[in-house]
C-alpha cells in the first residue's frame, strides 16, 4: 500500500536512546538539588546564623532521629491521610459535578456565580470554622483539603468536556450510542488527562489544606510539628517539617506522573 509506507511504527516505546536521556535528566535534577543544599550548608556555616536558617546537615540529622523514634512516620501518615482523603473526596465530588454541569449548560449558568464566589474565597480562612465544626481530629483537615481541591476537579473536568471533538459526539449520536456507552467511550477517556492534571495540581493544594488545618488546631501531623517547633524557636524543626512536606509533594507528583504515562499512552 502506498500510504502504509508513511505510517510510523506502532507502539514505539522508550528505546535505549530515550532511556539514556532520561537518566541524564534525572542526574541533572539530582545535581541541582545537591548544589542548592551545598550552597545552603556553606552559607549557614559562614555568613548566615544557623539559628535563623538552620543547616541541611542539622535537618538531615533531625529527620534521621525522627525516623528512628517512629515519630516521623506518625506525622507523615497523619498528614498524608488527611490530604489523601481530601484529594480523593474532591475528585469523587468534583468529577461528576463537572461532567453534570458541562452537560447541562443552563444549570451551569445559574450556579456559576455561586461556584466562582466559593472558588474565589480564600479557603484557608475556613480553617477556624472547620475546627469548630469538625473538631481537631482528622475530619477538619480532610474537609480543608477537600475544599481546596474540589473546584480544581470540577473546573478542569468542565473544560475537558468542552474540548471534546464535536465529531466524536456526532459519531456516537449517529450510531445511536446510549448515555452509558458515550460516557465510557468518549466522555471519561477525554477528561482523564484533565483529571490527572487536577490530581497534579491538587496534591499541593490538598497538603496546604491539611497543613493549614493542623496549624490552627491539631495534636499530630507535619503542620502541627512545624507549628510546635516554631513555638519553641526550633528553626531546624520548622525546616524539617517543611522539607518532609516538600519531599512528600515531590513523591506524590512522581506517582501521578507515572500513572499519567501508564494511562494516557495514546497521547
Amino acid at each position: 500500500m502506498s500510504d502504509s509506507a508513511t505510517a510510523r511504527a506502532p507502539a514505539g516505546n522508550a528505546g535505549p536512546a530515550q532511556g539514556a536521556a532520561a537518566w541524564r535528566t534525572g542526574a541533572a535534577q539530582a545535581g541541582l538539588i545537591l548544589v542548592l543544599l551545598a550552597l545552603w550548608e556553606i552559607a549557614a556555616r559562614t555568613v548566615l546564623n544557623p539559628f535563623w536558617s538552620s543547616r541541611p546537615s542539622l535537618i538531615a540529622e533531625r529527620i534521621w532521629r525522627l525516623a528512628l523514634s517512629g515519630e516521623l512516620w506518625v506525622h507523615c501518615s497523619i498528614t498524608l491521610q488527611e490530604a489523601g482523603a481530601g484529594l480523593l473526596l474532591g475528585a469523587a465530588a468534583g468529577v461528576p459535578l463537572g461532567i453534570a454541569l458541562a452537560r447541562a449548560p443552563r444549570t451551569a449558568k445559574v450556579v456559576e456565580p455561586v461556584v466562582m464566589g466559593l472558588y474565589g474565597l480564600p479557603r484557608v480562612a475556613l480553617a477556624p470554622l472547620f475546627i469548630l465544626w469538625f473538631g481537631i481530629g482528622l475530619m477538619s483537615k480532610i474537609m480543608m483539603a477537600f475544599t481546596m481541591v474540589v473546584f480544581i476537579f470540577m473546573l478542569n473536568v468542565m473544560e475537558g468536556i468542552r474540548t471534546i471533538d464535536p465529531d466524536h459526539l456526532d459519531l456516537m449520536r449517529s450510531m445511536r450510542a446510549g448515555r452509558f456507552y458515550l460516557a465510557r467511550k468518549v466522555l471519561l477517556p477525554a477528561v482523564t488527562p484533565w483529571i490527572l492534571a487536577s490530581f497534579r495540581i491538587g496534591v499541593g493544594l490538598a497538603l496546604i489544606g491539611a497543613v493549614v488545618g493542623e496549624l490552627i488546631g491539631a495534636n499530630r501531623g507535619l503542620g502541627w510539628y512545624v507549628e510546635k517547633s516554631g513555638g519553641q524557636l526550633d528553626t531546624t524543626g520548622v525546616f524539617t517539617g517543611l522539607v518532609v512536606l516538600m519531599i512528600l509533594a515531590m513523591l506524590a507528583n512522581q506517582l501521578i506522573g507515572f500513572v499519567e504515562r501508564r494511562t494516557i499512552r495514546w497521547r
Partner: protein
Amino acid sequence: MALTDTAPRVRVENLRIAFPRPDAAPLEVLSGISLDVADGEFVAVVGPSGSGKSTILRAICGLLKPAGGRVSVDGRPVTTPPPEVGFMFQKDALLPWCTVAENIRVGAELGGVARAEHAGRVSALIRLLRLDGFEDAFPKQLSGGMRQRASLGRLLAYNPSLMLMDEPFGALDYQTKIVMGRELLRIWEAERRAIIFVTHDIEEAVALADRVVVFSARPARIVADYAVDLPRPRDLRAMRGEAAFVRLTEAIWSDLALPA
C-alpha cells in the same frame, strides 16, 4: 442503474435548512432540495465549498433539524438517527484513546452485532482494509490514509445498509485518494449498499458514483443530476482518459460555472 421498481431508500422532499445567527437573519443553507436515492445506488453530491453538501447528509442522518420539508429513510420520517444509516466524517473521528481494533470494534458494538462475533468481525475488517499489523496502534501513529481506512472499518463494522460519506477522502493526498476510492468500490461492488458520497472533487464523483447530483452555491439548489453510464467494475486509472468520463466532468465543471 436506477431500481425504479422498489421504494427509494432515502426520500428528501423540498428540504430547507437554515442556521440561526446572532444579529442577522438565519443563514439559509439548503433551499428546497428534493432527492431520492434507490437501494444499492451510489450517489455522489458535488458543489462549491460551503454549499451545504454536508448539511444534507446531517439532515438525512437525523443530526440536524430541517426548517422545512421532509426527510425519510425506508419510508419513515427521520427525527433521530435511523438505525440503518452510518456516517463517515471528513476528519476520521477516530477515538484517539482507542487502538485501531478498538475503534473498529465500536462499530460492531453499536451495530447490534452479537458480542461473540465482535472479535471475528473486527479482524475480518482489518484484513479487508489491509490494516494488518496495526491493530494495536493508536490513531496518532497512523498516516492519514490508514486513519481513513480505520474509520471506514468502523463504518463497515456498524454494518449500515445506507452509508453517508462526507468528503471521506478529502484530506488525503491524490494517490492515497485513488487507492481509497478503489477500495471503496471493491467493497461496494461486493455488497451494494446505498451510498451518498459528498465530495468537492468532480472527477472522484464521476469515477465512483452511479449518479452525480450538482449543488449550486449557498443557498443550495440542485442544478443538475447526471446518470453516470460508465461500465463496472471500473478501472479508476484507465477511465480518466475515456471520452464519456471527460464529457461528464466537463459538463459538471460548466454547471458549477467555472471557466475551463
